[in-house]
């Protein structure tokens, strides 16, 4: 019997049949079908398109409206130009008419639009945790209770404390003073963790009460940055980026500036330096004294008064270099350059350094005549000065003593961002009435009696005075989304007592102050109403002011020049994070997901240590490091950062919030428990730190090795494969064709496609690009890039269309960084197009490599075949996937640019050269009956770039800027040998080093 006969001959047995009957089977099928049908009905309601019944005059559906205003994300108060569609803001850019930022805006400013639509915003007034009641409360009830309690404070002599940031608005400051007049027991306590008190104090020591100067960076031929990240987070970085880049513009400028950077941590400025040296922050003051000694005493190159000689006498440069391991050749080049560029160079010290170091820097600038670069036309205008630690301490002591009857938090979060040593949270419990006027719930709001929802900056009025001759206006570009009020209007209402609240309260106050206190002095030949409209239209008013006479350097300052001993043991160096500020942007997913310019880490802060220090501490990447200071103890994940000074632990502030919202809570480690109270007096170092290896590990998400063109463990691959091309200024002068000689014309067996009319191309000048990431933020907002979260970044699935590649060459201790913005190269012979089975990616007649999302079936062949690794795949509907659908909630979809498709799961996407902007421009030309010549189109990254490193346009127009860039001697294409014919041209980076230093 064969094996097949066994079952055939087996007797039929009904008992062995499956127990399910035909009817049951059909019932199950029907139920399954019903479930499947029901499951498919859950698509979100897309709303209805309804016509205007009363169309506002300014709004034309489908046509964008622009408003000028001011960004309040930090103290720079940059002018903004806000694009709105059908009444909702969708994009923030710089105001081109603003004299400070000139049309540019940093990553924080651009991404801050997401905060307007943050679902975690407060929508109605609410009782806080310390109130007798809980839940929502009406504004009327709050007003009645607060006015009564404030009046009680006035009667009983109890203090009222207004805790606010160092305001830059003259009208808001006037208002606070009037509030003080109404309630005389009021005390104003401005503060900011990210203060620059050391520099201010040093300036006062050296120049008395002379105004703090603005540096004419564009005129500086030489810059020496001492622990200063002036291209990253320090000062007016947007303006500084622009002006610094203007000094290395190979197309426009006849000179090329030189940047020396001496630092302990690794900053964006250090990454752009021609010479970078690592030095412990506590040795910086002595380094400057040694430079002074070399210049004044040894070389006798400048007049050396006795006080100066006395201060610098014992500090020789040679001994300093040998004891701190600085390369003597480079330091001697530095001294030569400082002397050769007298009156044309500038030495800057960062906010992390001590007062003594800042004084030494002021003296060095003075003896070299560099103070000529302190701009004579404008100075930094005064706002409220941040309080000192003693002032904060005295206010907190008053709270603890019960002599404060009410605390009003005016847009600050001291429970989180004051050093924990102040014990502010405990003191708050002793205050009967505590109010948080905030946009969203925070650590401070959690402990208050009332949480009062405040307008977002895009819903608010204001004026900002950060330069003596510039007033920047802030106007609302959308009516309040919720039952919120402007902070200033709330105070005005409480000053007036029991009257009805009006939304226009602060507008009227602001206008009235300008009409009565400012306008008459301007002697303008127009009525105030016209002036006001024009001011709001322009967003800025310039009032020429006679430049103040800078006083001479005070001898007391020179006498105070000294250095503190170089610290033994470990030092904590804390810094402002590149994108989160003092933690205020923690709940902004775009900014959390912005890679750190140097480490490329997202969604975390960490303890950076040098390789030697890591070895000494016995820690490696992702280990935990417990850092203990006199104030407290915290544990950070370790990031081993080459190029850092030894015995330094560098950490970023702004992380570790516990009540920031679903996106920002619990991200990173809070550094405030480590800081002493004196952190509020300037300087950002804590000495005598005890660092030990902690238990466990913490995986950091870094994008450094994602989408890499590099091959692991091949040293200098980026140079060998000619991804990065570099030389020195001198070598380029001697041989301008060094790069173009490398170009080879590739023969093709097929007929080349001829592009008639417009053909789009981009050029990126690597000499100007500082890697600030403003372009990434601009692209995110313009193109509706989703936030994916840390787990997806760890899987290499971040979605940003433009990334800044960072490469290191050199040694572990002295790495030489290069960076390169990498986006779709829009290749003529695009390898992605040939492999797409559905022709979802194809070529347009104007040279764009375009994506048809509806055709894409997600094979990812294109991504596999792209040599630049710039395609991004939607592994999920990330809006739904991230943080339990946080960014699918009401009203986040309002932030989407309606001109760009919102992509869903399973679709490939990539840079489009902002095709929506091209189409809009093309449409305008057609409407006006003009031939479209491609002029005037700006991509979002180009518009954002503060250094003007990105050029875009029609390469077929020989007179266009892009055509000139493409023909430049320094122009090259990445991976040119592949013959994919990219349309993004990079201009090779030149390092302005002396010739003996290899490029």
């Amino acid at each position, binding site marked *: 019997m064969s094996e097949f006969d066994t079952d055939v001959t087996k007797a039929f047995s009904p008992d062995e049949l499956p127990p399910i009957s035909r*009817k049951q089977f059909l019932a199950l099928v029907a139920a399954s079908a*019903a479930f499947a049908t029901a499951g498919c009905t859950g698509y979100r309601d897309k709303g209805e398109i309804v016509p205007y019944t*009363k169309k506002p005059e300014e709004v034309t559906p489908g046509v964008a409206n622009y408003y000028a205003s001011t960004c309040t994300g930090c103290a720079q108060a940059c002018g903004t130009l806000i694009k709105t569609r059908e009444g909702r803001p969708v994009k923030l850019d710089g105001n081109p008419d603003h004299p400070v930022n000139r049309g540019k805006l940093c990553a924080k400013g651009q991404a801050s639009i997401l905060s307007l639509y943050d679902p975690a915003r407060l929508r109605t007034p609410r009782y806080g945790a310390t109130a007798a009641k809980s839940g929502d409360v009406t504004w009327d009830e709050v007003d009645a209770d607060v006015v009564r309690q404030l009046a009680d404070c006035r009667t009983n002599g109890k203090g009222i404390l207004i805790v606010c940031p160092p305001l830059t608005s003259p009208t808001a400051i006037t208002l606070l003073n009037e509030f003080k007049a109404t309630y005389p027991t009021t005390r104003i306590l401005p503060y900011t963790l990210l203060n620059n008190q050391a520099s201010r104090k040093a300036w006062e020591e050296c120049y008395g009460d002379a105004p703090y100067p603005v540096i004419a960076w564009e005129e500086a031929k030489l810059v020496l940055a001492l622990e200063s990240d002036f291209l990253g987070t320090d000062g007016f970085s947007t303006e500084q980026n622009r002006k610094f880049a203007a000094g290395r513009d190979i197309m426009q400028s006849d000179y090329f500036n030189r940047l020396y950077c001496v630092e302990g941590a690794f900053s964006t400025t250090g990454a752009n330096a021609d010479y970078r040296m690592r030095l412990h922050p506590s040795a910086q003051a002595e380094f400057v004294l040694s430079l002074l000694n070399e210049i004044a005493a040894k070389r006798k190159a400048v007049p050396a008064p006795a006080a100066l000689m006395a201060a610098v006498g014992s500090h020789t440069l040679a001994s300093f270099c040998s004891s701190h391991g600085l390369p003597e050749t480079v330091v001697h080049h530095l001294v030569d350059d400082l002397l050769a560029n007298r009156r044309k160079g500038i030495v800057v010290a960062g906010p992390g350094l001590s007062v003594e170091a800042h004084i030494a820097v002021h003296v060095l600038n003075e003896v070299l005549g560099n103070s000529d670069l302190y701009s004579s036309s404008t100075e930094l205008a005064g706002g409220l000065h941040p309080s000192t630690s003693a002032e904060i301490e005295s206010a907190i002591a008053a709270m603890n003593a019960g002599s404060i009857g009410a605390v009003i938090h005016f847009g600050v979060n001291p429970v989180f961002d004051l050093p924990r040593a102040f014990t502010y949270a405990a003191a708050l419990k002793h205050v009967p009435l505590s109010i948080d006027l905030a946009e969203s719930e925070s650590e401070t709001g959690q402990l208050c009696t009332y949480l009062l929802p405040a307008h977002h900056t895009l819903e608010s009025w204001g004026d900002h005075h950060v330069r003596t001759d510039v007033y920047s206006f802030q*106007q609302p570009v959308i009516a309040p989304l919720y039952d919120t009020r402007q902070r200033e209007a709330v105070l005005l209402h409480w000053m007036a007592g029991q009257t009805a609240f009006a939304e226009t309260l602060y507008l009227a106050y602001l206008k009235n102050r300008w009409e009565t206190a400012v306008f008459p002095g301007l002697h303008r030949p127009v009525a105030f109403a016209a002036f006001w*409209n024009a001011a709001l239209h322009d967003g800025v008013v310039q009032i020429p002011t006679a430049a103040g006479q800078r006083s001479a350097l005070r001898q007391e300052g020179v006498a105070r020049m000294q250095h503190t001993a170089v610290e033994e043991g470990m030092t904590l160096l804390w810094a402002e994070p590149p994108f989160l500020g003092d933690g205020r942007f923690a709940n902004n997913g775009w900014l959390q997901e912005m890679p750190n310019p140097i480490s490329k880490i997202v969604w975390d802060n960490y303890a950076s240590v040098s390789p030697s220090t890591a070895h000494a501490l016995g820690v490696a990447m992702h280990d935990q490091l417990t850092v203990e200071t006199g104030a407290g103890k915290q544990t950070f994940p370790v990031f081993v950062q080459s190029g850092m000074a030894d015995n330094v632990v560098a950490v970023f502030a702004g992380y570790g919030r516990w009540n920031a919202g679903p996106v920002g809570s619990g991200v990173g480690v809070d550094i405030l428990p480590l800081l002493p109270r004196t952190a509020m007096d300037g300087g950002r170092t804590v000495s005598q730190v005890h660092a030990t290896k902690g238990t466990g590990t913490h995986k950091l998400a870094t994008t450094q090795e994602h989408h890499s063109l590099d091959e692991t463990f091949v040293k200098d691959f980026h140079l060998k494969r000619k991804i990065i091309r570099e030389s020195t200024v001198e070598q380029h002068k001697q041989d301008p064709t060094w790069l173009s000689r490398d170009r080879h014309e590739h023969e093709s067996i097929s007929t080349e496609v001829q592009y008639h009319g417009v053909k789009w191309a981009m050029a990126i000048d690597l000499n100007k690009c500082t890697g600030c990431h403003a372009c990434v933020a601009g692209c995110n907002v313009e193109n509706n890039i989703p936030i994916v979260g840390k787990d997806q970044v760890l899987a290499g699935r971040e979605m940003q269309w433009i990334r800044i590649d960072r490469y290191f060459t050199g040694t572990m201790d002295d790495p030489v960084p290069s960076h390169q913005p990498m986006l779709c190269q829009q290749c003529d012979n695009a390898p992605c197009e040939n492999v797409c089975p559905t022709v979802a990616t194809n070529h347009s007649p104007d040279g764009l490599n375009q994506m048809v999302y509806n055709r894409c079936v997600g094979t990812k062949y294109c991504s596999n075949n792209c040599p630049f690794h710039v395609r991004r795949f939607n592994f999920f509907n990330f809006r739904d996937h991230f943080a339990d659908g946080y960014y699918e909630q*009401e*009203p986040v979809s309002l932030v989407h640019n309606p001109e760009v498709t919102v992509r869903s799961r399973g679709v490939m996407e990539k840079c489009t050269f902002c095709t929506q902007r091209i189409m809009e421009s093309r449409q305008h030309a057609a409407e006006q009956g003009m031939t479209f010549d491609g002029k005037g189109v700006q991509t979002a990254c180009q518009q954002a770039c503060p250094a003007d490193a990105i050029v875009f346009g029609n390469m077929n127009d020989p007179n266009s800027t892009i055509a000139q860039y493409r023909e430049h001697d320094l122009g090259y294409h990445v991976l040119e040998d592949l013959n994919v014919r990219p349309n993004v041209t990079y201009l090779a980076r030149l390092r302005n080093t002396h010739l003996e230093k290899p490029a």
Partner: protein
Amino acid sequence: MSKSTTDNQPATFRRRTFFGHAGGLLAGLFAAIPVVRGWRQTGSTDTGTASPAGSERVKVQIHPQAVPRTSERSVPYV
């Protein structure tokens, strides 16, 4: 041989039970969808501003006192 009563009745009964259960299940399911997924009612403002998906409860309006860039400025640069 005639069929017994019990042969006929259960078939009818089971069919009715099945449809009854299936109908009830479907009705319950459809009723639960809005609760589970979150009911979003499409609305519009008095100025007729169409609201994008998921934003129906937010009223989007331009600010009446703001001055847009697209309007012509009537006075020289200030």
